[in-house]
């Protein structure tokens, strides 16, 4: 349905950079706006929220026009929810006061939607924090209240500007499961600004990669993280990210088996129940290639795969994109030396075996 889309067109030159985007995004699911700092991702999000303006532009959200040319809907009339990098709670109100601030205004004098409030409180697990003032909350708790505050409005679009970036690792781990629940339970579209590939892989369905104010690529997450022409695949820590489920544990060797689209992988036992969803990351430098199935090897995880593409990386290195799994289409990346590539006689379409030296569980 063409109206269930988010259409955003902005062309504007700022003193220090220019933004030039023409986006057609899905009207549901989580879309990550991904890029380095200065790529324009936050500016784009703020334009969509109406917190910043361009003299010309077009923005429509699931059929509703928010900006057309110079005519725009002010932020407070847009049915959106916005989560800032820092929680930005009102210091003079309790957590409950913060939650109700927006809800009162949505209700316009009628009764507040208590069900929506309770749902947001339950989803973010903040029921025990409601009477506290922001300064009595930890950084992670503040951000959970801020997310609930945006959700309780029952917005038609949720905008999140690096909601985890200001938090330390432990606080990130605290919030990520809640964001994953949002992803699974939310009906509305979410635009999520991030510069972290891990977050994007865990939370997003679609990725828009921005660089210097321009859209470099747009596509499904798994596909984009391994695409060779993008800087991400060339980075030193380039990786493939796999969406897996715990199959079982092997108590004798203390290993856990995980089913992924690329095949079944073993890793040192993890504290997850069978059937639970996990994300695995395989770094390109942890992959080596063999033409024949290695009979005797200390490597635990060996998957059959096919060479999808070869790309020179630097003088001595090559980047190989492999397809693994039943349909030989689940992407994996390998950094290998050109010497090895010539010795193996690698060509596109070739079938071989990927030996995976390390699989990391993404927390």
């Amino acid at each position, binding site marked *: 349905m063409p109206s269930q889309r988010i259409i955003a067109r902005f062309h504007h030159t700022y003193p220090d950079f220019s933004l030039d985007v023409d986006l057609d995004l899905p009207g549901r699911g989580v879309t990550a706006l991904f890029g380095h700092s200065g790529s324009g991702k936050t500016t784009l999000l703020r334009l969509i929220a109406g917190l910043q303006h361009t003299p010309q532009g077009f923005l429509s959200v699931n059929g509703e026009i928010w900006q057309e040319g110079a005519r725009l809907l002010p*932020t*407070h009339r847009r049915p959106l929810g*916005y989560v*800032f990098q820092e929680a930005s709670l009102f210091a003079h109100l309790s957590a409950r006061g913060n939650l109700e*601030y*927006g809800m009162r205004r949505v209700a316009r004098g009628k009764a507040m939607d208590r069900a929506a409030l309770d749902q947001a409180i339950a989803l973010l697990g903040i029921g025990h924090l409601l009477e506290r003032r922001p300064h009595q909350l930890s950084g992670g708790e503040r951000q959970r209240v801020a997310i609930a505050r945006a959700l309780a409005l029952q917005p038609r679009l949720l905008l999140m500007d690096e909601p985890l970036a200001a938090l330390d690792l432990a606080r990130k781990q605290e919030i990520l499961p809640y964001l994953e629940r949002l992803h699974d339970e939310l009906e509305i579209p979410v635009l999520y600004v991030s510069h972290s590939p891990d977050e994007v892989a865990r939370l997003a369905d679609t990725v828009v990669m921005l660089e210097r104010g321009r859209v470099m690529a747009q596509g499904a997450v798994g596909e984009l993280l391994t695409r060779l022409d993008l800087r991400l695949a060339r980075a030193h820590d380039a990786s493939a990210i796999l969406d897996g489920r715990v199959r079982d544990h092997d108590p004798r060797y203390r290993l856990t088996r995980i089913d992924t689209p690329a095949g079944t992988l073993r890793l040192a036992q993890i504290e997850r129940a069978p059937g639970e969803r996990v994300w695995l990351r395989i770094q390109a430098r942890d992959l080596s290639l063999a033409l024949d199935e290695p009979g005797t090897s200390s490597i635990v995880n060996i998957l059959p795969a096919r060479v999808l593409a070869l790309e020179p990386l630097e003088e001595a290195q090559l980047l190989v994109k492999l397809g693994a799994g039943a349909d030989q289409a689940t992407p994996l990346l390998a950094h290998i030396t050109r010497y090895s590539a010539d010795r193996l006689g690698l060509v596109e379409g070739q079938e071989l075996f990927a030996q995976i030296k390390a699989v990391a569980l993404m927390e």
Partner: protein
Amino acid sequence: MGFSDADLQAIWLTLRLASLVTVLLLLIGTPIAWWLARTRSAWKGPVGALVALPLVLPPTVLGFYLLLAMGPNGPVGQLTESLGLGLLPFTFWGLVVASVFYSMPFVVQPIQNAIEALGERPLEAAATLRAGPWDRFLTVVVPLARPGFLTAAILGFAHTVGEFGVVLMIGGNIPGETRVVSVQIYDYVEAMDYGQAHWLAASLVIFSFLVLLVLYSLNHRQALR
């Protein structure tokens, strides 16, 4: 001894003047402070300097120019006369106008600082929570900048109570109309009546001390929160 009837009249007049000026200054000073805190205009510097002038000018200089402006040949004087209000010098309302100028920086600067410290973010957050511009000002800026408004009101009031030079230039010394406490003290000293002067002068010292004490304890409590 004690306060004479003339003293009580002067105290009442002073309190009336200071209260009225404080209210007017909060009404006029807040938009100026808001503009100064948020504008990126090139006029920010000149306007800020103009507002701050009374901090450094001798009150007589300010009073002199206000007297000229409000006099029969001044632009303000011609305006008030054409409106049928008569001339402002040597009236209570003349003092009010002069005091508004004289105490302006004491009101504008604390409010401006509080709004600047607040930053853009709480306003943006409120906008994403459906609050319109007035709503944002009343429900976010005012409560969050409350210490600034409180400081502004107290300083504006106290500074108006303490003025002397401008009053003398504009208002002269008319009982019940322009003879405020500071002028009354001056009169006692001129008449060598030091006893009566003590009563009023000591009252002003105590009043000023109490005002500042309240102000500093409020700020201290705010800092502890």
